[in-house]
């Protein structure tokens, strides 16, 4: 059972290469979210409300369509009155920190230390979805996204296992937003059109989830 009235600390982590076309989508999203958060709150705290004791039942597989994932997320919309329904939900206050990370594995795990929740935004290349499709995953059912693995590091699931084994305080809840990328090879500060078109929806979705 999770604690009901803890002060929530959420790490919103954008990961990727800011000058490598669609690989920058996570970095761009976290920057946009940080600006919106500051504008909306004017402070570092936000009132939130979330389901307790049950994981969000969304995005457990990459075969789900974006709309299916979106529908599922809506069922557990942390802003909605439904989510304040007594018995399953509890309100709490919390803070969010916005972090830019360039590579995955141990490095990424270290950035998550001390947070209750982590939201990771990265590009993914499955080749199975239309570019711009937003996929959501809940740890431990997470895929290898573009930057959560590296030749000079271990992958994220292994890094989290190491962290927990060593007694590092890691988030009980890790949500990954992975955006199907079209171009992660050519240097550019711009997203490709399909990913650009999906960008506002991606940011809005995370904003709703963070309730600000």
């Amino acid at each position, binding site marked *: 059972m999770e604690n009901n009235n803890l002060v929530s600390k959420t790490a919103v982590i954008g990961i990727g290469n800011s000058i490598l076309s669609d690989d920058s989508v996570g970095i761009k999203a976290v920057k946009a979210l940080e600006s919106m958060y500051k504008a909306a709150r004017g402070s570092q705290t936000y009132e939130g409300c979330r389901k307790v004791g049950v994981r969000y039942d969304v995005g457990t597989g990459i075969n789900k369509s974006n709309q299916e994932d979106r529908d599922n997320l809506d069922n557990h919309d942390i802003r909605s009155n439904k989510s304040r329904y007594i018995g399953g939900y509890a309100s709490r206050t919390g803070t969010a920190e916005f972090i830019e990370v*360039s590579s995955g594995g141990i490095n990424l795990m270290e950035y998550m230390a001390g947070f209750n929740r982590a939201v990771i935004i990265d590009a993914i290349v499955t080749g199975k979805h239309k570019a711009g499709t937003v996929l959501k995953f809940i740890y431990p059912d997470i895929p290898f996204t573009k930057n959560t693995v590296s*030749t000079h*590091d271990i992958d994220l699931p292994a890094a989290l296992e190491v962290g927990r084994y060593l007694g590092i305080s890691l988030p009980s809840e890790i949500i990954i937003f992975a955006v199907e990328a079209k171009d992660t*090879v050519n*240097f550019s500060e711009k997203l490709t059109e399909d990913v650009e078109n999906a960008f506002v929806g991606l940011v809005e979705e995370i904003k709703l989830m963070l309730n600000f």
Partner: protein
Amino acid sequence: MKKISIDPITRLEGHGKIDIFLDDEGNVQNTYFIVPELRGFEQFCKGRLAEDMPVLTNRICGVCPEAHHMASVKALDRLFGVEPPPAAKKIRELLYMAFYVTDHTTHFYALGGPDFIVGPDAPPSERNVLGVIRKVGLDIGKEVIETRARNHRVIEMIGGRGVHLSGGLPGGWSKSLSKEELDEIKFNAKKNIDFALFSLKIFDDIVLKNPVYKELILSDVYIHKTYYMGTVDEKNRVNFYDGKIRVIDPEGNEFVKYDSSDYAKHIAERVEPWTYLKYPYLKNVGWKGFVDGPESGVYSCTPLSRLNVSDRIATPLAHENFEKMFNTLSVKRDDGRYKPIHHRLATHWARLIELLYASEHMLELANDGETASDEVRIIPNGVNGSQEAVGIGSVEAPRGTLTHHYVSDEKGVIKKVNLIVGTTNNYAPMTMSIKRAAEKLIKGGEVVKEGLLNMIEMAFRLYDPCLSCSTHSLPGKMPMIVKIMNNNGDVLETLKRNSWD
């Protein structure tokens, strides 16, 4: 003829492929290491202000932004024709030592170490960083994380930002260091020295005292007699930040020593039709293919290469360990230098010696009175040329010599960029090592399945390849699939290992 393909099986479909071709007798004829490269960096930089390059180039790679930042700012010193004050050079170098400590620590404990500490034949489920921690102890695992953390703090303190540092400017550094900051760095450096010594002791206890592992290091599977490259100071001692680039031949004779601005006179890049990769080689020896020996221009540029080209190490404890490694695996020449070590797996040992050197040198720099000076920058008056300016700078990235080459117009607007990143130096030897490992396990059409993937992995893991700046990244645990095909391209057999196995 059979064809064997090894692909990572993650999202990077079709990327990072190793093809092994067998001849009619079923023996290995050739191996191809194929990784598509990132494209368009030069075009991306054209028209930008030269002084933006240190913060642009450190975004190329998520693994070693510090190395790109340093090579870039050194190139700018020359492009703007300005010599940084001593404090600026020492502050840069201080940060760079902290970076080396984190980088080498990660490689030894998370990537290279499991094969030795847990054992090359251990099941993959145990042959990983968790297996290492279980073997050496929980406290050591915590110390690995703490070592990374305290050195990341130093990098952030000096560099201004933790991820993409921004302290480097043409002619110096953006801030000086306070006494309190230097005291913290000294404290951290001392802890680094203890940690490096402990790591070498682990290597000694677990690897060197185990005859099986020693035999593995000495095994002919992992020997290539190539040229070696590395940066040395005026006394031919290894230096990561500055000096001349020294190349020795397979016998240990100095072949050439040059300033990085002359790199194009000495290094050429071989283009092969089957890959985007360009293979750097010694221009004045010539390209003879993927072969070793004095007639082949193939060279290596790794921690072992850097120690091979050095006469000694400038810090006492690291030098002690340098002597120990060369006395174990090499012999002295008539001129007092050691013959180069060709046993590639000794690269892991050399990496730990470099870890100790970086730690000791970090303490030296923090104790150096000049480092504390407030004079950290000389502001340039413009670029070093009336119509066109050229700036070339290099550092030793953990994975090899990293060279940045910029050409700008008279206003400092970039016209041309060329980078030779650390890992690319080792593409040819990596290809050779993969071939050697494959040859050992595939004979007469018989493929020894057990161990093939790990032997091949071990062959190129020792180079600590970082493909994210030179190429598309590959998965950390290198999930692979091996396809064995007949002449018609029919798949006869598939060997597969997932990343999570």
